[in-house]
């Protein structure tokens, strides 16, 4: 079996998801080709470190910066000449987007966010993510070339140094494919974010108002963490959506997540469940967040949170 892995990178910086995809591909076959749109020597070297026996650079002016349609069409042309058994990318925003374009160009199905692959039959049996991870779906994939993305963060990254050849491939790209090239970008100062924070203090409807978040901000500040929230909060306009944790917000994985006044709806839970520890603070001892958390305090968050901050200050002062 031969597998082609679509490498995702941002102006030469490899996305960690691509290393997950390479690792997943190696579990299927030793014959792994990495397809890199644009790309640099450094990227090619990294692909070889993770098991790609061949690295193909797709070379065209439309491919230097991210361009979903041009990337998809270029990879499709490579697939058409090489005929691999499978094409794999990582299920990130870009990975899913590019592979969807590949699949349309080749008139093939594409299965997104796969967790398990059984390739023993002509029709593959796959398990994929639904509802952002709250539900799984077993599907069969019936296609001459199997196109799929592997769910992000579901595969460990395992290096495997191999000797690797390098090839260039020049696709023929129609002028209209240039219309979805990234034109510009605006870079913000990156501090601690929801995805990188070791401590997240999350507030839900129970916080009651935008001002009610002040004690949560204070606690987060004391612990070098950030504030997150539920959709009830963003829907009420109390906080910006960039703070939302959950299926349609951000996935977090801090050392500790304080879930304060959050009931623990499944769509919130999937965004929080990768946290190493969850401490729920809720007036309702039967709230889903409380029963699923590692730790809980039963009580009014407006009284409990200031008391925690006070205790931290007391111990630090003393």
């Amino acid at each position, binding site marked *: 079996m031969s597998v082609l892995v679509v490498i995702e990178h941002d102006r030469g910086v490899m996305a960690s998801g691509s290393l997950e995809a390479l690792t997943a591909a190696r579990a299927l076959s030793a014959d792994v080709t990495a397809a890199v749109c644009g790309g640099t020597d450094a990227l090619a070297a990294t692909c070889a470190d993770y098991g790609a026996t061949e690295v193909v650079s797709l070379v065209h002016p439309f491919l230097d910066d991210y361009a979903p349609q041009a990337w998809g069409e270029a990879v499709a042309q490579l697939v058409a000449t090489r005929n691999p058994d499978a094409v794999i990318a990582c299920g990130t925003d870009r990975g899913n987007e590019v592979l969807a374009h590949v699949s349309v160009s080749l008139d093939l199905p594409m299965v*997104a966010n796969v967790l398990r692959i059984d390739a023993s039959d002509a029709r593959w049996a796959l398990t994929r993510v639904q509802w952002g991870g709250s*539900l799984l779906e077993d599907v069969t994939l*019936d296609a001459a070339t199997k196109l799929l993305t592997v769910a992000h963060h579901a595969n460990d990254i395992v290096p495997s140094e191999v000797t690797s050849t390098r090839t260039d491939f020049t696709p023929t790209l129609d002028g209209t494919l240039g219309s979805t090239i990234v034109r510009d970008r605006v870079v913000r100062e990156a501090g601690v974010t929801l995805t990188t924070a070791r401590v997240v203090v999350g507030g839900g409807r129970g916080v009651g108002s935008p001002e009610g978040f002040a004690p949560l901000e204070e606690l987060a500040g004391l612990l070098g963490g950030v504030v997150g929230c539920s959709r009830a909060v963003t829907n009420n306009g109390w906080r910006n959506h960039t703070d939302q944790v959950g299926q349609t917000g951000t996935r977090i994985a801090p050392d*500790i997540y304080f879930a304060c006044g959050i009931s623990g*709806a499944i769509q919130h839970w999937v965004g929080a469940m990768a946290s190493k520890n969850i401490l729920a603070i809720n007036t309702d001892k039967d709230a*889903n967040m409380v029963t699923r958390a590692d730790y809980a305090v*039963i009580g009014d968050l407006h009284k409990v949170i200031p008391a925690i901050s006070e205790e931290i200050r007391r111990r630090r002062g003393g």
Partner: protein
Amino acid sequence: ALRRSASLHCSQHQPPDERDRPLMSSLRIAVCVKRVPAPGSRINVTADGHAVDATNLGFTTSPHEECAVEAAVQLVELHGGSATVVTLGPVEAEEQLRYAASVGVERALLVSAPDGLNWDPQNTAAAIGAALSAVEALDGAFDLILFGNESADSGGFQVGIRVARMLDRPVVNGAKGIDVGDNLVTVRRPIDAGFEVYELPRPCVIGVKEGINLPRYPTMKGRLASKKVAVEVIEGLDRPGGQARVRLHRPEEKASSTIILGNGPEAASAVVDLLAELGVLA
């Protein structure tokens, strides 16, 4: 004098002060939403494993799609024109069409398919694309077709892209900002380091992410008006693709036994002990 030339946009995204200028013509926008069950703390599956057990559940659409509807309504408010909401599903999906109508969408299209909520992505896209083509053949092209970034339930990340390609239009997903000009549509999309900007020629297709706006709630007047909207029905063609469902099931859960650290503010000391133990206090 207010009309902008295409060359203005070639390399720079639209400056904010140009966003409110009138366009040469009003906008026709379509927005696609999918009816899904609204589960609470757990998702249950039917005995045959083929669908979510929606007994006692309400129905909704993805938050991404709610925001796509709001974006369509706001663009029409800004530039004039009309918005059409489209869904593929059973007759009950009329509920989601009327919800969109209650917040300002004028026209509603049901692509009817009794089992359409469980169709694979190729099948779904083919039916929606065909329905949109049929409408466009009669009434002219939509300037903009909006989708959610991904559906709430199946999350295939592709129906919008497939439809766009069928209709031969440029498409990007993940939009958290849309500004429409006479020739180009500017899309902002978040990335780790900030956001990137795309400029798509019109007509085009865009996948919208929650956070692009704050969807309004329907007013009483809107609710009443939505009851009067005539839902147009097109039969959905059923052509299964290469991905077939075998069964749905819940992921394994780690058995949890919650340690209650205490009640009320008195628990603070136990909480801070825990923080020390976890090493996040220093």
